[in-house]
């Protein structure tokens, strides 16, 4: 027996490819541009969003029948902000080092459109378990793109991965740099992320023509 029914499994698998929040729904672009200059930051952000979106979707789903529709957006915002602040405070008290790493992401998580988008589109109309899967799936789809973008930007922009020099030393001219290769400074500024995301969208749509919208 499968762990998840086919319908449930699709909740996780769809956002990873054919319904990806970044490349198909074009949500969460802001943070995808802002923090992908380094692979490490991409991974931290991906993990944080998996946590907040998974938990937030469950909370909203449990509350879905009592939330007044007139103020649902602000209720969603309060749920996200509360979750993030509590996590931030607990980490500050018990895992201070980790909280220092995460501090800059707190604001980016609260304003992440994917989180609001999933609350609004899914958790308000579905049960907690399915909402949880949907949250995890979308956050993974978001995280995968973040990590791909982070990989290329850090490799081409700084010649490192997770901070480790993989192409040699650009100043002492060792490794690949001995052949005249240079780091591309453009890759570490945010517009480069837009180009990398654009290339991913291009590749994805050429492989699956069904994704191309008819005009």
């Amino acid at each position: 027996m499968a762990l998840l029914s086919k319908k449930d499994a699709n909740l996780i698998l769809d956002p990873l490819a054919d319904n990806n929040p970044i490349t198909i729904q074009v949500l969460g672009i802001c943070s995808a541009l802002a923090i992908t200059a380094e692979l490490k930051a991409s991974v931290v952000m991906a993990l944080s969003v998996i946590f907040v979106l998974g938990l937030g979707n469950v909370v909203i789903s449990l509350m879905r029948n009592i939330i007044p529709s007139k103020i649902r957006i602000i209720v969603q915002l309060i749920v996200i902000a509360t979750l993030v602040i509590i996590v931030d405070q607990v980490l500050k008290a018990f895992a201070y080092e980790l909280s220092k790493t995460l501090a800059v992401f707190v604001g980016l998580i609260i304003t992440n459109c994917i989180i609001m988008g999933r609350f609004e589109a899914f958790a308000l109309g579905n049960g907690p378990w399915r909402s949880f899967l949907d949250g995890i799936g979308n956050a993974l789809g978001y995280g995968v793109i973040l990590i791909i973008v982070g990989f290329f930007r850090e490799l081409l922009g700084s010649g490192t991965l997770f901070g480790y020099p993989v192409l040699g030393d650009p100043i002492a001219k060792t490794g690949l740099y001995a052949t005249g290769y240079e780091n591309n400074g453009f890759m570490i500024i945010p517009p480069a992320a837009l180009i990398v995301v654009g290339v991913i969208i291009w590749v994805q749509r050429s492989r699956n023509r069904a994704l191309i919208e008819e005009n």
Partner: protein
Amino acid sequence: MAINTEKNVYTVLFAAVMVAVVGTILAFAASGLKPLIKENERFEKQQNILYAMGVNENSDEGSVSFIPTSEVESTFSEYITRQIVVRDGEITEDPEAYLIDMKKQLNLAKDGETPSLPVMIGEKDGKTYYVIPMYGKGLWDAIWGHMAIDENMVVQGVYFDHKGETPGLGANIKARYFMDDFSGESLLNNGRYAGISVAKGNNDPLNQDKDDNQVDALAGATITGNGITAMISETLYLYKDYLESIRTQ
């Protein structure tokens, strides 16, 4: 369930209850965890000061590593021999000078009042270090740090930190390769105070020229770098009389 969630009364009630519940949860979390958080912040300050003095556990790998939190208190009292507060030229001893909030002191100075300026004096291998706390602003939010200097006005080490600079760009002010460049850099230029600026065009990426009052900037982080430059000169300006009194050349 037969609740009419469209009614205005319900909406207002829901909002009120939600605010009360969330407010209570957050208030409890904040006040319950405060002592632990305060303690962590105090240890962090001690670690930063020791780091600037070169008391740290850095290896060759290029990452920052502090004295462990469990040992930092005893290490701090071992290396920091005196803590003083300079106020209007008068020096008073204060064993908790390192906890003074530099942001407040800089604001006092800006308003024309007299700031209380802390200096942590440390000793390591027979050499005296004067550690000065700094505070300024980067691109998005606050930046701060500690700078250890000696009697010759040569920087012995720094530690910078920030609240919300962009990861991968401005956030790298706390990376080893940036902070290490400050060590050995002189604050003086022909006997006059020149500070240290974060320069984009100094053409010295390995930072071999220690007398040019410049360190190599971070690509993509111009404003954060300018913030560091401004922070150093603004803070040291307040300390100028004290620095003059300890300067030997």
